[in-house]
């Protein structure tokens, strides 16, 4: 695979070149719809009105809010990738995580947020993992393709959530949502910790949970026996089995951890922002996790950086509507990133590999 390609080229150079291509094509699309790409980038970063761009005083609170969600879903995809499982069900698992958070927070009047966030996290992880468990079991025991089953579970999950919100969990009235969580379960926003953040921005303490989860994933994958087994299984299933590693166990563990991480996203969105369960809390973040894990080469550091990049894109992208570019531009950029960093990667990799071979010949 990596003949003559140094590690830095594999993990930094190739993703950066692919990302550049994706941004170039995005720029061409902006030009196609008659707007100025340079102007668009400026608006994305600093905002049309000064403080709501991705790095503006107001905007950064949103950027970090999105980043938090994307770290969770990115880690979820990354952990599964290590076991060579493609978990495309982050969307459903994160949605069910929201049901877990709501179930926990509505069951007891929590006295203080520090207890509530622990309980809500457990609920989110349990529900997220449960939603990954059936596809994982079917893959491990019956050989049903995990990609297809997780896609199906995304749709089953979304139907289930609609059912819950217009049925058993619905608050009195017509709106499909639960009653609001009690005041004791409200977690602090970043503004309450660092007043420099804007009061209305939704970024909250779950950002630290996300960073903590990233460290946890790093420890799990690279510092534990289980992580070693997961990676060995991902590299070569046959060799792993020969070494006495049990496929069923690895698939189940990797997918349950993955589902739990995706579910954790709900602590940020449902407990941190909406403070009740509403429809469509995930908003595609489960899929962004795929792009984030690809960009980040399934390494927690890479995932955190890529999640921040997508946070910037999401907040910056919503600013674009003020200069006449619909916010769907973000979806297009996201698609191009997934395309160039993921499926079209060899378009960059093959020429780079050739260049290195030539270079090495010249040096020798």
């Amino acid at each position, binding site marked *: 695979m990596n003949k003559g390609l140094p590690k830095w080229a594999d993990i930094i150079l190739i993703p950066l070149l692919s990302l550049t291509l994706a941004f170039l094509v995005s720029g061409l699309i902006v030009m196609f719809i008659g707007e100025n790409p340079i102007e668009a980038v400026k608006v994305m970063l600093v905002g049309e009105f000064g403080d709501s761009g991705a790095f503006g005083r107001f905007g950064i609170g949103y950027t970090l809010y999105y980043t938090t969600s994307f770290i969770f879903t990115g880690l979820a995809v990354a952990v599964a990738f290590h076991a060579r499982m493609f978990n495309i069900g982050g969307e459903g698992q994160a949605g069910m995580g929201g049901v877990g958070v709501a179930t926990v927070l509505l069951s007891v009047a929590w006295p203080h947020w520090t207890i509530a966030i622990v309980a809500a996290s457990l609920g989110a992880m349990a529900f997220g993992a449960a939603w990954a468990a059936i596809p994982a079991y079917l893959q491990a025991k*019956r050989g049903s393709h995990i990609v297809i089953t997780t896609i199906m579970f995304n749709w089953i999950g979304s*139907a289930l959530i609609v059912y819950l919100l217009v049925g058993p969990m619905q608050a009195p009235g017509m709106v499909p949502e639960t009653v609001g969580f009690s005041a004791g379960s409200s977690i602090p926003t970043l503004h309450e910790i660092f007043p420099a953040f804007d009061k209305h921005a939704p970024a909250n303490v779950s950002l630290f949970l996300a960073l903590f989860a990233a460290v946890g994933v790093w420890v799990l994958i690279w510092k534990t026996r289980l992580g070693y087994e997961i990676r060995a299984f991902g590299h070569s299933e046959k060799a792993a089995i020969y070494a006495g590693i049990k496929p069923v166990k690895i698939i189940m563990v990797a997918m349950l951890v993955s589902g739990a991480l995706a579910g954790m996203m709900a602590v940020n969105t449902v407990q941190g922002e909406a403070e009740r369960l509403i429809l469509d809390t995930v908003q595609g973040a489960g899929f962004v996790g795929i792009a984030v894990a690809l960009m980040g080469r399934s390494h927690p550091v890479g995932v955190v950086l890529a999640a921040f990049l997508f946070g910037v894109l999401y907040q910056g992208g919503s600013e674009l509507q003020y200069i006449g570019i619909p916010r769907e531009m973000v979806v*297009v950029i996201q698609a191009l990133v997934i395309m160039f960093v993921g*499926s079209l990667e060899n378009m960059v990799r093959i020429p780079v590999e050739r260049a290195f071979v030539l270079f090495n010949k010249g040096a020798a």
Partner: protein
Amino acid sequence: MDFNTILQLFDSAVRLSTPLLLACLAGLYSERSGIFDIGLEGKMLAGAFAAGAMSAYAGMPVTEGGLGMTWGMAWMGALAAVAVSIVLALIHGFASITLRGNQLISGVAINFFAAGSTVLIGQYWFQSGGQTPPLRGAQRFEAITLPFAKTLEGVPILGPTYHDLISGHNALVYMALLAVPLTWWLLFRTRFGLRLRAVGESPEAVDTAGISVVRQRYVAVLIAGVLCGLAGAYLSLGTSAAGFVKDMSAGKGFIALAALIFAKWQPKSALFACLLFGFLEAIGNRYQSIDLGAFVVPVQFMQALPYILTVVILAGFIGKAIPPAAGGEPYVKER
């Protein structure tokens, strides 16, 4: 439930299953050749937009900058849909056949690209939140009344069945239904079909026989593009939507994928799977919940049923769904 109600249910089942069937057959060609395609949804959506936009443009008076056509606009739209869908199919083919990239990731990317770009370009061209202008008359595919439908209407049972259920659909519905036997014949009775199935099962064998795996797979992916384009055209020109609406494919590409697995990659079963899923949707649209006496089935359960059934089939408890052996695997020629 009286006869008329049943007839109406079946009628809307046929209408609702048409886009599923076209997309499902598209997936069948692609996956039979060994290329997974979860981008059916995206190709369909992009096709729907292209059809809506082209048909609107073709029917617009020359004074307003359109083509000023008075007939055949719907077919222009369908052509545009097929063209756009083929472009996306070629991107998928380039990524998964030529570059040997991950086919699933490519499909995900195509779905997003379609979801974003249709609204983006739609807003730029028509300035109405990504919608195309409402389409009228020959800008849409109009219902075709089959011969003797009016005359026979009076005949009990058979008359209304012929008049309401069999007659009175648009051209794309009949094309989709005809595509089923055609696909069966092509795949199982021609040399082309044998080769197409062979590259999906054992590309090495096909390669050894001196046949290009790359070419076979590209052809399959292109056919999938054509069919997804037609499915898209049906959504914007053949339904009561009468134009393109943002995200109008609404997961139909995934139901089609589910139907494909449910049908175990067989054309004839695909027809029944799509009709079944269309029927479930028709019931879901008509009844909010179904009271079975002992308990009430919520409409959301009906909506989730296609996916649940597919998981059950995939689990192998009721028959086993065995995908083409080389599905998802890029073919590396031995050197």
